[in-house]
């Protein structure tokens, strides 16, 4: 049986690997699209391929929740619910700002980056992070 430290380490490695693959695919796809004339079906494949690490991060997150103890599981569930709510609010508000107030258009793939940024911020403000041994 894995310890909680090992579970967290595995999760962080998986997330870091997903992020690295995502960054590589995103930048290389942009370069390919900029420098080469390619068929639309290849563009579709590249778009789906770039999205794959996003799906993999959620698999890693779900796996982490499944393997964690009941307390971590409840904290993570709360963090994900809060982050998703905040993400939906921000993206909806931004959509209306674009529509009514001519705010610059943001591509929807930013939602993924924003989601992880929000998870980080929500996690940092969680009270349990600042507890000490006694």
């Amino acid at each position, binding site marked *: *049986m894995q*310890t*909680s*430290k090992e579970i967290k380490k595995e999760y962080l490695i998986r997330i870091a690997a997903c992020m690295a693959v995502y960054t590589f695919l995103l930048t290389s796809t942009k370069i390919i699209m900029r420098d080469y004339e390619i068929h639309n079906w290849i563009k579709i494949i590249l778009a789906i391929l770039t999205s794959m690490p996003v799906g993999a991060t959620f698999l890693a997150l779900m796996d982490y929740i499944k393997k*964690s*103890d*009941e*307390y*971590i599981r*409840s*904290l993570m569930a709360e963090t994900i619910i809060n982050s998703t709510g905040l993400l939906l609010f921000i993206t909806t508000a931004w959509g209306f700002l674009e529509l009514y107030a001519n705010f610059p258009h943001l591509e929807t793939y930013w939602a993924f980056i924003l989601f992880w940024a929000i998870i980080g911020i929500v996690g940092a403000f969680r*009270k*349990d992070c600042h*507890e000490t*041994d*006694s």
Partner: protein
Amino acid sequence: MKQILKELRTELGFTQQELGDKLGVSRQAIIALETSKHIPSLELAYKIAALFDRPIEDIWENPYR
């Protein structure tokens, strides 16, 4: 819910990490249990009770009794 988990742990000389390892939970979970921020599941409560060889109600005060 009032509990005496910290007293029991220090009585046996366990650190939070050691107790967590024995129960298969994180140190954060032990901190949350000792500060009553987390009410354990029945399964974890039974595990803790068995480890300290005490009935559950000796560890967590029953607020309905």
